[in-house]
């Protein structure tokens, strides 16, 4: 019998959710010209949370026009220090309403409340604070002789895995540099972006500086294809990223893409093993593995393979899967039915191809989309689960014998977003890091983020950087 079983500890803060949301255009909430609405669902309960306006081409056009007008009329002409004031105001409002935003993010997306509370929301606020400080110091982001100038209207398309945070990554530098924005949140997770629009309105951001259009891929395509958009920033799948690059080619639009990944997480036999296991767990089970920089390919030194598998098998049994609003939940709900089906399909392929599946033994909730923390051993480099992004709580474990082989296998992927290395030897850490073709390499840690640190990919993981001074340059004409 359990003697110290954790009682339910649900977060009790209530988030105000309207029954229906319009589009946020030119500082006002407006009905979509399409007349259509779609549901956004809580993936942990399968209950509908709200009806969301569906923006068609005409709506996107209205939003872009509003953004253009605001750009010419207010934003590009405003003193940079005054722009900063608005951005600081938004940052403070996020901090003040952090608990409510965390609950909203968790309800709409399924991620554990401890993650939205301790990671997504505080980091989103930190990005606004950081870039607010840059607004009147932009010449320091330029090369000698260059003058900082905004680009114009930015179309920003964000994914469903970190809805508020990804919006913050894109909005904060764009605003600081004097651009105006049309933001398109993901279809399954629009609520925090809409809450952010409300925050911007309450911060008296001039109308049209930030516009939010909700919808699906067609809405995004309309934004990408709009003639009066000067810059597209997209975070999402490699497939869509490629389509966007094709569609913007030759148009003169500036483009940054942050796409998929299949990060190598390398563990040497001399690693601080318990902490390496924590790093591996964080690398793949954080946000149910819905993380583009997830450490989804574990490369372990062959001599440590058995030990790592034993430790990881034990460790995943202690992960608590269930109600994302419970403060003790470690693994929440899969974001959507579609994503759950995709995970199941890929896991099935792993089993069919001969890999060995290990899962946490737990009872999945009857309702909602859930998948247990899982990993595969006996994975070969050629298996689909070693090559394709699963975007779920599923890790593939491969082995290597020498540092050279580790590097070779780590780089043997079309992606290159992130990588991790665990070894107690500092010189080996640095040596391996310089040969990994990945935008971020974490040494003896994983999933560390800071607004001052640039983030972005190599090859099919995209191009351009978000965060830091590098992220600023993506929103300045040069």
């Amino acid at each position, binding site marked *: 019998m359990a003697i110290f079983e954790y009682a339910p500890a649900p977060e009790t803060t209530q988030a105000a959710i309207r029954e229906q949301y319009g589009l946020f255009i030119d500082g006002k909430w407006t009905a979509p010209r399409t007349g259509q609405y779609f549901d956004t669902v809580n993936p942990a309960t399968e209950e509908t949370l709200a009806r969301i306006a569906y923006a068609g081409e005409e709506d996107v056009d209205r939003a872009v026009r509003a953004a253009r007008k605001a750009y010419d009329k207010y934003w590009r002409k405003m003193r940079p220090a005054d722009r900063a004031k608005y951005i600081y105001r938004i940052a403070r409002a996020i901090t003040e309403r952090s608990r409510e935003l965390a609950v909203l993010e968790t309800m709409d997306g399924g991620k554990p409340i401890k993650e939205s509370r301790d990671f997504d929301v505080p980091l989103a606020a930190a990005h606004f604070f950081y870039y607010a400080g840059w607004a009147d110091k932009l010449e320091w982001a330029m090369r000698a002789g260059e003058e900082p100038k905004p680009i114009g209207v930015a179309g920003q398309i964000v994914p469903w895995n970190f809805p508020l945070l990804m919006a913050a990554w894109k909005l904060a530098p764009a605003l600081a540099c004097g651009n105006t924005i049309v933001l398109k949140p993901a279809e399954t997770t629009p609520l925090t972006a809409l809450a952010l629009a409300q925050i911007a309105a309450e911060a008296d951001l001039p109308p049209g500086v930030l516009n939010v259009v909700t919808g699906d891929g067609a809405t995004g395509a309309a934004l990408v294809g709009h003639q009066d958009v000067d810059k597209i920033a997209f975070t999402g799948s490699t497939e869509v990223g490629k389509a966007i690059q094709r569609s913007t080619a030759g148009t003169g639009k500036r483009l940054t893409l942050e796409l998929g990944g299949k990060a190598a997480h390398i563990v040497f036999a001399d690693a*601080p093993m318990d902490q390496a296991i924590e790093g591996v767990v964080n690398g793949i089970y954080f946000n149910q593995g819905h993380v583009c920089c997830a450490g989804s390919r574990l490369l372990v030194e062959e001599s440590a393979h058995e030990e790592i598998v034993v430790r990881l098998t034990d460790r995943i049994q202690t992960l608590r899967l269930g109600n994302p609003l419970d403060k003790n939940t470690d693994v929440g709900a899969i974001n959507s039915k579609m994503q759950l089906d995709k995970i199941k399909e890929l896991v099935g392929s792993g089993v069919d191809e001969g890999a060995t599946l290990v899962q946490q033994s737990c009872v999945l909730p009857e309702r909602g989309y859930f998948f247990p923390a899982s990993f595969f051993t006996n994975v070969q480099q050629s298996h689909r689960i070693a090559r394709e992004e699963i975007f779920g709580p599923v890790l593939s474990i491969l082995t290597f014998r020498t540092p050279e082989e580790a590097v070779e296998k780590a780089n043997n992927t079309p992606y290159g977003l992130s990588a991790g290395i665990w070894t107690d030897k500092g010189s080996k850490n640095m040596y391996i890091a310089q040969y990994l073709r990945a935008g971020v390499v974490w040494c003896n840690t994983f999933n560390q983020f800071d607004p001052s640190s640039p983030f972005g990919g190599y090859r099919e993981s995209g191009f351009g950087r978000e965060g830091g001074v590098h992220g600023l340059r993506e929103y300045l004409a040069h």
Partner: protein
Amino acid sequence: MSVTVDAVMLETRAGSLAKRSIKTTTKVAGIRLAIQCMDLTTLEGKDSEGRVRSLCAKALHPAPHLPDVPSVAAVCIYPNLVPVAKEALRGTSVKVASVATAFPSGLSSMEVRLADTLSAIAAGADEIDMVIDRGAFLAGRYREVHDEIVAVKAACGPVHLKVILETGELGSYDAVRRASDLALEAGADFIKTSTGKVGTNATFPVAVTMCEAIRDYARRTGRRAGLKVAGGVRTTKQAMTYLVIIKETLGESWLTPDLFRIGASSLLDDLLMQYEKELTGHYAGRDYFPMD
């Protein structure tokens, strides 16, 4: 090759365990467990027979007006006072633990340290809390530290031996891990964080590291050793976090006085206050609980 520990990730892990939300029925169960696993301690130069008798009474019946509150596991005292505690606790479940081996520094000759141990056992101590020679450990004389533990263990015979590592003086988590491994190999029944006499006592990351050593040792040898956290554990919230650390690192089967102890004095009062609050819905003032 000794197991190494990465401080950054260890502290992150300990921090996340400290954020577990322990409420309602879990909190009541946890408070009872913490009391059952407590070594109620007085280790001061001014300890007297009267003080120890009073402590023993409280150890047996922590809160007379809450009769379902269990007794603590043991009282922990200086060797000279063992006969007094033994007399006061005769025929009860509460054990008498004595510090020994020139507590708290351990800086006496091996003869003196062994004699100290043997006299505490002769006086009736059920458990011995020894200290390691940190000077020898930090100087790299690991064999010497190991052999001394073996010698004290031999002197103890069936008497339960807790080995105090004094982690606050070891300087790094790597050293905490190495000292834990060494004490376990030498036959410690328990490894214990601290004497309570130095600036840094038990901390969450240190407890996690020691649990990992105990877990790995059990996996390797099949022998299950215990952990005692001591020093600076004053609040119910801290005690709950230690229970969480044990549960999530070693498993629930370690949550028993046979394998887990909290060495504390004022903690008991806070546990009782929180316990009554959980039962009645409001806090009672400190004066509603017997002092000690």
